[in-house]
C-alpha cells in the first residue's frame, strides 16, 4: 500500500463507480499524477472485475426461479402455518422431555446426578434423633426397653427372695440346733442383701409390684436386725426372730411370690 494520504475508504467506492461529486474528481486527479496509487487502483479493479463471474452465477440462479409463482407459493405456506391452531401443552410432555435428555447425554447425566443428590440429602436430613444403624450401634423401641426392664426387675426380686430365704433358713437352723453359719458371716450376708434391697426398691415402685414389695419390706426389716447380730447376741433374740418369721408365715409367702414371679418371667 502506498503512502498517499487519500481517504482509504473511498478507494473501493471509487473503483466501483460509487464515489460521487468532488471526492471522485479529487481521486481521479490524484491517480493521474501518482503511479503508485494508479498501480494499486489497477490491481483493485482487476479484483473487483472477478465479482462479475460470481454475479453471473447469481444472475443465472435468479433466472432459474419462477418469480411469478413464488409469491403465491410462499403466501400459501406461510398463511397455512399461521392458521394452524396453537398446540396445547401435550400430555406426553414428560416423554418429550425424556427424549430430549436421551438426545443430550451430558444433560441426562447432570439431571440424574441432581436426582441422586437430592435423594441422598433427603435421607440424610429427614428426621432428627436416633436412627437404625447409627450412633450406638443398636436400636430398640421404648416399649421393648420397658419390657426388658420389667423382666430384669422380676429376676432381681426373685434372686433377692431366694437369697433371703437361704439366710432365713440358716437363722432357723442356728436358733434350733445351735450350729449353722457363724454369726459374723450371717451379718455380712444380711448387709449385702440390705444394699441390694435399696437398688430393688426403685424397680419395685416403678413397676408397681406391690405384693413382692410388701414381702421384701418385711424381709428388709428382719435383716436390719440380723445385721446387728453379733457373737454375743443371745439365743433368745434369734428365737424371737424365728418366731416372727413363723408367725407371719414369711417363708411360705416368699415361696408363693417366687412362683408367681417365675411364671411371669
Amino acid at each position, binding site marked *: 500500500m502506498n503512502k498517499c494520504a487519500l481517504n482509504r475508504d473511498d478507494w473501493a467506492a471509487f473503483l466501483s463507480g460509487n464515489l460521487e461529486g468532488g471526492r471522485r474528481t479529487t481521486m481521479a486527479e490524484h491517480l493521474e499524477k501518482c503511479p503508485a496509487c494508479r498501480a494499486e487502483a489497477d490491481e483493485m479493479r482487476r479484483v473487483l472485475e472477478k465479482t462479475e463471474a*460470481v454475479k453471473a452465477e447469481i444472475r443465472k440462479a435468479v433466472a432459474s426461479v419462477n*418469480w411469478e409463482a413464488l409469491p403465491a407459493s*410462499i403466501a400459501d405456506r406461510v398463511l397455512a402455518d399461521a392458521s394452524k391452531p396453537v398446540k396445547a401443552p401435550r400430555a406426553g410432555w414428560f416423554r418429550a422431555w425424556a427424549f430430549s435428555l436421551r438426545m443430550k447425554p451430558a444433560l441426562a447425566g447432570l439431571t440424574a446426578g441432581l436426582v441422586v443428590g437430592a435423594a441422598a440429602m433427603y435421607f440424610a436430613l429427614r428426621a432428627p434423633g436416633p436412627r437404625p444403624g447409627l450412633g450406638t450401634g443398636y436400636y430398640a423401641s421404648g416399649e421393648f426397653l420397658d419390657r426388658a426392664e420389667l423382666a430384669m426387675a422380676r429376676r432381681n426380686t426373685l434372686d433377692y427372695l431366694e437369697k433371703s430365704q437361704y439366710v432365713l433358713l440358716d437363722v432357723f437352723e442356728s436358733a434350733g440346733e445351735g450350729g449353722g453359719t457363724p454369726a459374723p458371716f450371717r451379718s455380712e450376708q444380711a448387709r449385702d442383701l440390705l444394699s441390694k434391697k435399696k437398688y430393688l426398691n426403685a424397680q419395685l415402685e416403678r413397676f408397681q409390684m406391690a405384693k413382692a414389695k410388701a414381702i421384701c419390706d418385711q424381709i428388709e426389716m428382719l435383716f436390719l436386725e440380723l445385721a446387728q447380730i453379733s457373737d454375743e447376741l443371745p439365743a433368745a433374740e434369734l428365737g424371737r426372730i424365728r418366731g416372727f418369721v413363723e408367725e407371719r408365715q414369711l417363708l411360705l409367702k416368699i415361696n408363693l411370690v417366687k412362683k408367681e414371679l417365675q411364671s411371669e418371667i
Partner: protein
Amino acid sequence: MAEPAEIASLLKRIQDGDREAFMTVIRLYQQKVFVMAYSVLRNREDALDAVQETFLRLYQKAGLYKPGNSFQGWLLQMAKNISIDSYRKHQMKRREWETSKPLEEIPVAVEDRTSDSTASDLRSAFARSVEKLANRQKMVFVMRHYNELQFNEISEAMRISVGTAKSLHFKAVQNLRKWLTPDLGMQR
C-alpha cells in the same frame, strides 16, 4: 423500491392477515432476498428455503418494523441472519455426513469452499477468497457487489455507520487483492 408510506400501509395490512398485501411485499423484495441468501449459501434450493423463511419471519414480525428506518435494510438483515444460520446448519450436517460415511462413498467432485488449493479456475479461487473474509467484511462485500446496495443501505442492514461500512469494504478488497495475487498474476 416502495415508498416508506406504502410499505407502512402494506405492513399494517399484513398484520391484519391481508394475503394480497403480503404477496405484494414478496413480489417487491423476493429477488433481493434471494440474491442475499444465494450469496451466502451458494445453492439455489437452500436459497429458496431461506427466502421462504425470511418472509415467514416478516409475516410474524411485521409489527416490529420501525417506520423511518429502511425497510429493505431491515428485511435484508433478517435474510442475512437466516441465511447464515442455514449455512451453519448445512455445514454441520455436511461434516456429520462426511465423517459418518466410508471414504469411498464421499463424492470427491464436491467443491471445497474452504480449501486453499491452487485451483486454476479463477471464479472458484475468487469465491473461496470471499468465503475466507471476516464475517462483517464478507457481508459488506456481498451486499455491495452482489446485491448492489448503496453504502447507506448496507449500513442500515448491518446496523453500522456508513463510514464503518466503507472501511470494511476497503479492507475486504485489500484482502482479496492480497490473496488473489498469485491467481491474477499480479506483481507484489
